[in-house]
Structures are given as C-alpha cells and as structure tokens.
C-alpha cells in the first residue's frame, strides 16, 4: 500500500507561460497550488533579455538613444525622454521651452497609448473582448500622430539629447486637438462598457490587493501605488520638462485592488488630455535644440534621473568616465520592480485571479528583461 495517492497531495506545481497569452509576453510563472488556491508563485524572467545595458557601453551617447525605445516598446517616447533628460543633466544642457512643451505633449500622448494597450489587453484577459478593438482604434490615431511627427510608429526615437530633431509638422496642433476632442467621449464609452459591468466588477474587486505599506516596501510605483491611496507622482513631486506649469490632478484610489487601479488609469488618461491641451495652448516658439556640442562628451560623473513613465518610476543611472561612451547605464524599469509584488498579490487568490493580477500590474516584458 503506497503512502499516499495523488488525492492526498496538497501541493500541485503548475507552470504558466512563457507562451501563455495572458502573461503579456514571455513571463513564466511557477504556481504552487492547493486545489484552486494559489499558495505561492515564482517568476522566471529573462526570455527577452537583450543586454541593453551592456550595449550602452559600446555605443556613443546619441547612438544609444534608439535602443531605449526597445525596452518599454509600448511607451517608447517616455523611455526616450528619461534617457535624454539624464544625459542632459550630465552635460548641463538647457532644453529650450518649445522643445520641452512638445516633449510633454508627445509623452502624454504616449501615456494614453500605453494605458489603452493596458486597458484592452487587461479586459481581454478577463474575457471582455470588445474594449480591445476600441482601444486599438484610438491608439491608431496616436500612432498616426507619431508617424507624422517623427517617422516611426512604435520605436519612435522622437527626442535627441538637447532637444528635438524634428520641428512639428504643419497640422500637428490641429491633429492633436482633434484627437483630444475625439478621445474624451471614447473614454466615457470604455467606462460605459466596463465600469458598471457586473462581471468586470466581480472579477476585479478585491483582487490583488496591495496596500500602501506593501507598495512602499516593494518599491512599487505608478498607478499601483496611487490606487493604494498614496498621492505620489513624479510629475508633481519632482517636476521635469516643465511639468510644473501644468495644472492637473493625481487620481488616487482607496482600496488598492485591481478595480481601483482600473479607475486610476482611466482618470489618468483624462488628466493626460488636460495636460496636452494646456501644453498646446501655451506652446512657445523658438528653437527646438539646446546648445549641445557636436561630439557629446560629458564630464566625469554620475547622474540619476527618474520620470513618471506610464507604468511607474522609470530611472536612468548613468556613469560617465569622460569619454564619448557611457561607462555604465543602469535602468530602473517600473515593470521589473512592480512585478515583485506579484507573489504578495497572488497568495491566497484563485488561479483565475493570477491572470487578473498579472494584467493589473501592467508589465511589458521588454522592460522587465531589458
């Protein structure tokens, strides 16, 4: 007589990913289950590792700029902004106000695009297929603006160190304004589809709770932190690129669950539109490129600059040894840090909730693995 049959086994190990469609890329999660209940998770990452930080050591400063777009490819413009700001701080270069305003417009558009992807795929994971189509449709408009502005849709390489390479195109202002006018009713439409929907609430409410203390302990930033009720947004806390001129609110939640995060992100899209409109109204004239030497050779030193990317705090730590190539570039990607909290959020939840939790963190594996 054997000691126990499989029916007595209390712990079942289940592999999820890396080809699972709702892990948003190539994330592998090892789930330890007790029946339907998750008693532990373990993330295996690195399937998309390309060694971006190492590549930086063999590239000059301007040459590395296109590579950062490939980390968080959903929000490439924000990545580029962070990198450019870091090198500019290292060089001590002042960016002209016009360039700053255009940067703000493009990053906020990108924030909307990133949140749209998140909303669409998250809803798809939960079983609501329709929002995905609508989100992609609106995102298309943003990508068209990017394409017309800088010639690429996804990996834009829109900014250069010291300012911008391209002046806005003729219909830029009217295009962006038309997008803003068109977009706000569409957000209401997403809310009509989801906010009151009983299934949506049932799947998201009280799932993946992370309170403010846990968020701080794990270093979690972005919408997750704000949904836990902490009013922390780097655009307000340490304004960069002229964000101090704009009037906007930081939406926060109270419970810190998936549903609050959904509401926070929806509100953030509205706030982004508000910022874009203000930036367009006060768009200054003037040059778009600061006084940058032809050969970029920052002085010896190190710098850490962080910005509020759509997914949280995105930081660049650059060490310069005085040559044309960085000595070391370290990226603090928001997705990577936020992913740590997966285990905490999943413990005690059901298997189906794991998909919701992965979706609600809003990870991009290109950024997790770099």
């Amino acid at each position, binding site marked *: 007589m054997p000691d126990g049959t499989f029916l007595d086994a209390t712990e079942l190990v289940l592999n999820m990913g890396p080809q699972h469609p709702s892990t948003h890329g190539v994330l592998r999660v090892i789930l330890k289950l007790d029946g339907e209940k998750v008693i532990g998770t373990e993330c295996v990452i690195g399937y998309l590792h390309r060694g971006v930080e190492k590549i930086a050591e063999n590239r000059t400063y*301007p*040459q590395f700029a296109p590579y950062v777009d490939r980390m968080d490819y959903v929000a490439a413009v924000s990545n580029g902004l962070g990198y450019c700001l870091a090198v500019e701080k290292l060089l001590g270069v002042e960016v002209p106000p016009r360039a700053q305003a255009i940067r703000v417009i493009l990053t906020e558009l990108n924030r909307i695009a990133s949140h749209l992807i998140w909303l669409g795929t998250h809803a798809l994971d939960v079983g609501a297929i329709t929002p995905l189509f609508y989100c992609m449709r609106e995102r298309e408009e943003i990508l068209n603006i990017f394409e017309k*502005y800088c010639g690429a849709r996804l990996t834009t390489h829109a900014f250069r160190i010291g300012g911008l390479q391209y002046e806005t195109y003729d219909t830029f202002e009217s295009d962006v304004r038309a997008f803003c006018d068109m977009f706000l009713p569409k957000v209401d439409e997403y809310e009509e589809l989801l906010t009151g929907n009983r299934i949506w609430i049932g799947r998201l409410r009280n799932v993946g709770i992370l309170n403010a203390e846990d968020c701080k302990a794990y270093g979690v930033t972005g919408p997750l932190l704000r949904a836990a009720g902490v009013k922390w947004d780097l655009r307000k806390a340490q304004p960069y690129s002229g964000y101090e001129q704009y009037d906007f609110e930081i939406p926060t939640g109270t419970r810190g669950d998936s549903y609050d995060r959904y509401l926070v992100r929806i509100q953030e899209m509205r706030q982004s539109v508000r910022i874009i409109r203000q930036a367009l109204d006060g768009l200054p004239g003037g040059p778009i490129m600061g006084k940058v030497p032809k050969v970029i050779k920052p002085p010896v030193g190190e710098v850490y600059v962080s910005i509020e990317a759509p997914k949280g705090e995105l930081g660049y730590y650059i060490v310069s040894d005085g040559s044309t190539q960085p000595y070391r570039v370290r990226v603090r990607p928001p997705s990577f840090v936020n992913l740590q909290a997966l285990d905490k959020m999943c413990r005690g939840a059901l298997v189906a909730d794991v998909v919701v939790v992965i979706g609600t963190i809003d990870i991009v594996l290109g950024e997790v693995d770099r």
Partner: protein
Amino acid sequence: MLNLLRKIFLLDLIQGLWVTFRYQQPKYIYTEQYPAQRPKIAERFRGAPRLNINPETGETLCIACNLCALACPENLIVVGSERDEKTKRKVLTTFTYDISRCMFCGLCEDACPVDALELTQDFELASYSREGAIWDRQMLEEGPRPTKYAW
C-alpha cells in the same frame, strides 16, 4: 429597490451592449484591404533607404564622407571610396547597407551633410534570402530589384 430592478433587467450589461450596437453602422468599418488599398504613409516615415542621385547629371550626391557609417549604432553601412587623381576628391565606389540589421532610427539620415542618404516611405522590405537584405549601391539608387526566378 432600484438596485434590484437594475439587476433583474441586466441594465449594466445592456448599457455595454448598446455601445457595441451603436457601432453596427457600416461607416464604422475600419478594415483596410491592404495590398489592393495602400495605406497613407507619412512624409517623414523612415523606411527603405535610398541613395539620392542628382537628377540632372545622374551622378550620386554622396561625397563619401563616411559620416553615416560613423553615426550608425549598428555599424551596418560600409562606404567604399577612392581618391580621384585629377580633382583630388574622394569618389564613391561602393555602398552597402544591411537592412536586416537596421532599426530605422534615422541617425544616418540626420548625419548626412548633403542629404544623399534618405529613408523613404517604402516599407515593403521582405526578401527571399538573407543576401537579399544586403543592399548594394545600385539597389540603393534604383530601388529594390524584383526577384527573378528560374522558371
């Protein structure tokens, strides 16, 4: 009470269904019949590279300064040149551009002092072999050649 009625009549779900129903009209169809119907490509689009030639003389605009090759992060441009004994100027001989490694960042285009190298609106870059992705000077000047088959 109101809440119960909402629940019984599935009002929250009907609200969502009404949104999808509004989009039934044919004017909201977004499908693009791609090969038959060409997408509108923006003027600044960074696609297939082209080496511009002077339309009047038919000579290349490139002055073989090698700046594009130096600017490229991927080191995929190779500029071959020789010195013209008479004019003491550098003349372009070969130019290879490996589009399989190119990320279309536009740095080479920005670096070119005479606007000889340009990334065009052409986005159809598929080829049947890896060699086909390495464009030589003739291909860069005339555009990609259609593949010829034995049969």
